[in-house]
């Protein structure tokens, strides 16, 4: 245990960024980003391709240079990467485990270098899979590689877990199991998970907070309850569609001959007079918010 590690109470942010910026030549990857992430949250960082998600995560993990202020667990990731990695875990994309590595050696290695790793926990997670200790990573399927990576990471008692597209290219069984394990066996009120993914539908129910990023800017940063209060979707019969349009919806789409309107901050009591009121799905919200991104 590192005694110099600043004490983190439930109100001190795990991650705090001010004026975080990063450019690659003429391209602005992060444009003056301010954000705070509190402990015990599961935050989804959602954005279209090239919006700056990975750049933001790389900055948080100390993997790339950036401008502005950034503090992760009270440490500057540029200068204290090694200490930080004792408290931060990350799964960056699927299948980044080295292909020559043997499962038993992987467990031994992490047990050898990581002071917060529990071998018993890891073995327990591995026992639930079909992975054998004598196998090499190259002999495992993509789904099994992710299971192995998750078993290694969940056995580390870290404060922050960063997941960058952790289930890309996996089938639905592995994807479901991945997030179920995380919730049931790993997450607690002292841990924080920051996740980016394009499979929004699958994580929407587990998120506590939502962040949308577009063109290097955070354009939405709210808890899921706040999102539910702020956004509403109304299914409107054709005769009332013009009335709905007059209220300046974020988006409109057609389903079964009816129009579905998505509103930001409209009076929900009034909206309910127009038609059936829903909580919008994050995916619909995302599509409405990111309209015109690739145009």
């Amino acid at each position: 245990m590192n005694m110099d590690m600043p004490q983190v109470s439930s109100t001190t942010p795990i991650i705090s960024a001010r004026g975080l910026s990063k450019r690659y030549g003429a391209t602005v990857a992060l444009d003056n980003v301010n954000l705070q992430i509190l402990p015990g949250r599961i935050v989804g960082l959602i954005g279209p391709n090239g919006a700056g998600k990975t750049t933001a995560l790389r900055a948080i993990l100390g993997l790339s240079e950036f401008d502005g202020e950034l503090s992760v667990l009270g440490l500057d990731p540029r200068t204290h990467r090694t200490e930080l990695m004792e408290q931060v875990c990350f799964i960056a994309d699927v299948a980044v485990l080295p292909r020559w590595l043997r499962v038993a050696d992987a467990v031994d290695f992490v047990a050898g270098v990581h002071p917060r790793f529990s071998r018993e926990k890891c073995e327990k997670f591995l026992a639930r899979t079909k992975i054998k200790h004598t196998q090499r990573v190259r002999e495992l399927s993509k789904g099994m590689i992710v299971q192995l990576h998750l078993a290694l990471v969940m056995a580390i008692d870290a404060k922050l877990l960063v997941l960058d597209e952790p289930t890309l290219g996996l089938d639905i069984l592995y994807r479901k199991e991945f997030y179920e394990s995380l919730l049931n066996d790993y997450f607690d009120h002292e841990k924080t998970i920051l996740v980016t993914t394009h499979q929004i539908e699958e994580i929407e129910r587990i998120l506590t907070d939502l962040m949308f990023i577009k063109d290097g800017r955070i354009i939405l940063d709210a808890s899921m309850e706040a999102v539910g209060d702020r956004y509403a979707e109304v299914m409107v019969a054709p005769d009332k569609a013009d009335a709905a349009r007059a209220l300046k919806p974020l988006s409109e789409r057609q389903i079964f001959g009816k129009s579905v309107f998505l509103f930001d901050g409209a009076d929900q009591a009034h909206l309910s007079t127009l038609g059936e009121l829903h909580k919008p799905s994050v995916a619909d919200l995302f599509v409405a918010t990111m309209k015109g991104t690739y145009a």
Partner: protein
Amino acid sequence: MNTGTPMNTFAWLVKREYWENRGGFLWTPAIVATVFLSIMVLALVWAEFMARKNGVDINGIQLEQLTRHLGPEEMAKMQAGMDIGLLTLGVPIGIALFFVVFFYGIGALYNDRADRSALFWKSLPISDTGTVLSKVAAAIVLAPVLATFALIALQLGFLILMSLYALLHGINPFPLLWSPTHLVAMWVKLFLMLPVNALWALPTIGWLLLCSSFARSKPFLWAVMLPIFAGVLNSWIGLMNHLSLSNTWFWRHIVGRLLTSIFPGSWLDAEQLREGFQEAGGMHVGVNGISPTLTFEAIGNALATPDMLIGIVAGAAMIAGAIYFRRQRTESYA
């Protein structure tokens, strides 16, 4: 448990290099030694077969009488020749080690970026300095130590083979082939050479790791073509002549040191070596100079030459550069 202490972590890092490169570090020298011994067995069997077929009779008794009647001087000469023979067995192993370490150095900080597993290693509390230094240690300590054991095994195999052949012809192999003081002294020297080899190799391993860490793609081309191109360019415009240094100087001290210093024993001066071989036939064998080309003195002296010291400084600087780029670059963009 001392998990996470720097020394413990470093030991695991070196172990990781061994796991990944067992084929090069362990099996390559072992296979070279085995192949060499097999060829020797075949050659002896063939020689024996041809001799019998053509009715040539090797008269063992006479040969043994020959060694029995050797004076101490001639005996020492014979043994010096034997030492040279045994050390020559190191050439194929040395060549194998050179290629293994060369390609290891080029890939060490590049391959894990190309297959993105660097992202996994960087998710663990391991410093970039520790990572790079563990690769230096694997290249200039671990691989040569394993190759040295392979060489000793090859020498023993060779001696056993020659002894069996001698016995087959009724010659007592012990006085000439199995002199314990000789063998032990030679092996001690082989191990004493290791730190000298390692320090001498620093500019090459530093250069290879720097390219491996720096290159966004094709580290081999960077590592090989840049010095050679510089050498050609220099020969062409003759820059060195202005500094009253020859083009040969540039090829030997810049290009050569960047690319070939990982060859074991390449710090030995070629001129001295030739003289040494000649002296082996003369009186200069001496009581301590068991292998005349490789005296304890020569090993010690090599450490204090300007070539060695400047090389160490340049190598350390390039390793520092490799650490810097290791921190900057997480993925290759090939």
